[in-house]
């Protein structure tokens, strides 16, 4: 994708996305015709109470789940035309995940966890280590690279997860309740870090039920009962 196209094409474009979970006779409509555009450099908060469908939306955005209907264009490319290996590549290179429960591999050290996405790409060992240390440096964890997740605080673990999300310089970082398991102060630090990354040009998508966190975002999308609330994608138009 050329630089010119990158300027004009939104990173993410959702067109009438629906998701129906079918379990026996019970059908649950988690998403009903969601439209969404994420531009390069955005800091978007997807807000909604639990059960609103925001987790489903997050999973679809992260290519962890296929929508039942609708079109999802990633950098202009409809993802339903991409084969499973292509989706794996997309998840590995274009999307950086930050989860509420950190989702680090407990047996790997911090730097090894950060390296993990690169290990599925053809990146040499030394290069992997160099880039992982660089990413840890960027989240200010340069001192604790050899520790296991169990030896780290929640805030530190989340920073390792953010470093892992950053390592492939993804098109966007998808953070699902990134402060949910953290105390207010640590959560604030994590948010500050995400803002900092966004200021450096990284597109960030936050999924949260916490309005205070949503308030810090440039754009907000309210979701309820699987639908985007009327006029809810608001632009704070700052910066």
């Amino acid at each position: 994708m050329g630089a010119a196209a990158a300027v004009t094409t939104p990173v993410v474009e959702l067109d009438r996305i629906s998701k129906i979970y079918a379990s026996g006779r019970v059908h649950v409509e988690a998403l009903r015709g969601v439209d969404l555009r994420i531009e390069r450099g955005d800091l978007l908060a997807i807000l909604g109470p639990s059960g609103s469908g925001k987790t489903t939306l997050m999973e679809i955005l992260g290519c962890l789940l296929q929508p039942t209907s609708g079109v999802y264009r990633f950098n202009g490319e409809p993802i339903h035309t991409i084969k499973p290996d292509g989706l794996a590549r997309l998840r590995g290179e274009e999307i950086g995940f930050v989860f509420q429960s950190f989702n680090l591999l407990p047996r790997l050290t911090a730097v090894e966890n950060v390296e993990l996405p690169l290990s599925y790409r053809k990146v040499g060992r030394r290069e992997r280590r160099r880039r992982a240390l660089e990413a840890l440096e960027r989240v200010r964890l340069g001192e604790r690279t050899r520790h296991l997740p169990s030896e780290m605080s929640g805030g530190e673990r989340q920073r390792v997860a953010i470093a892992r999300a950053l390592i492939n310089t993804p098109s966007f970082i998808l953070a699902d309740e990134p402060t949910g398991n953290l105390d207010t102060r640590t959560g604030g630090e994590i948010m500050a870090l995400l803002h900092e990354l966004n200021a450096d040009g990284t597109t960030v998508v936050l999924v949260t039920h916490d309005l205070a966190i949503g308030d810090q975002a440039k754009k907000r999308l309210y979701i309820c009962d699987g639908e985007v609330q009327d006029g809810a994608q608001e632009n704070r138009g700052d910066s």
Partner: protein
Amino acid sequence: MNVGQILRSALLTLRSQKLRTALTLFGMVWGTASVVFLMSWGLGLERMIDEGFNKIGNNVVHIWAGKIGEDFTPALDRRELWFSRDDVEAVRRGVKSADIVLPESRGWYSATYGETMLSRDVRGVEPAHMIVRNTRIAAGRMISADDVRSRRRVAVLGSKTRHELMGAGARLGAKIRVMGTPHRVIGFLEPVGTQLTRDADEIDDQIWVPLTTLLGQRESPIENEEVIDIIVLRAKSREVFEQLKREVRPILSRRLGVSPDDEEAYILVSPIESLQNMPIGRMRGMLFVLAVTTLGIGGIGILNMMLDSVQERRQEIGIRLAVGARRRDVVAQFFMETLVITSVGGVLGLVFGLVFCLFLAGLQVPDVIPLPIVKPWIIWLALSVMGIVGVLSGIIPAWRAAGVEPSVTLRAE
């Protein structure tokens, strides 16, 4: 991920799940070792049976004279039957499926050397008995045709007789008394060991003298006749044994003047028949079933542990999928883990199995207990079956777990 990375990751996982790894390893080791041992032991058993029969002679057939058995024969004719040299000659001429036909007479007689006196199974034999009985001379020589012609008083001793009669003083050329007369010891037989079938005492316990010598010295049961107790034949092969029986029957019936249907007129015995009646096939089948069951149990153990491992690590699989692992990357990881376990367990099992076989082979066990025989195909069989089971039980659950949408695996706790 390259192979080195996958291997490192596999070792890391195995190390962190010590108990599970140990249990699986144990299953593998046990399975492989048991299969190696059972199959080898089965082979040993078969060989022992085979050799046991060969010890009494290569496809040897004995014909013992019996008695007239039919109820309607006059009391006068209810006589003991016996063979003459002419009968042996007739069998030699008429039975095409035997390549050696020999007369033999025998009896229990006293044997004396110095202060020692024993009662022994004394056989009157001819030189070709060496071949039919499948024995070898340990020292000295076998009875020669010349000894037979000249009725020489010479004797060849079985290995046990040699020790029990002569002890440490055993030497060739010594004089022993057999049936009351001095005989010169001209040869010692090599030990034969336990014979699975035998006509009287084991060869190791026997004393062999020329047939003519024995016939000349013993009081004949029939006046002025040389009574042959046994006709010894060697069948050309095991396969012609039935034919041999069909050939013998008309000749002997005619010569002994008995009905061809008389089952008691003479008794024909052969290890071939016993061998045919032995449930070797069933034994082999049983060992095979045992081995397969053992392997199966080992396999189920591995399958169970891998299923468990994959189930427990679904979240890990989800995380890996989320950071860009393809389905085959996940499968490769689990494949490597099982491959490591399977290889280590297989090799250890092999070593234990072989060591146990060697240990048994080193024991001074009586020769009625078979020693295991390890053949390369047994090793390959055990390793490949364990390998296939192990690797499949690693791949299949991982393949399935990595096939569902990552969101599902990721949510698993």
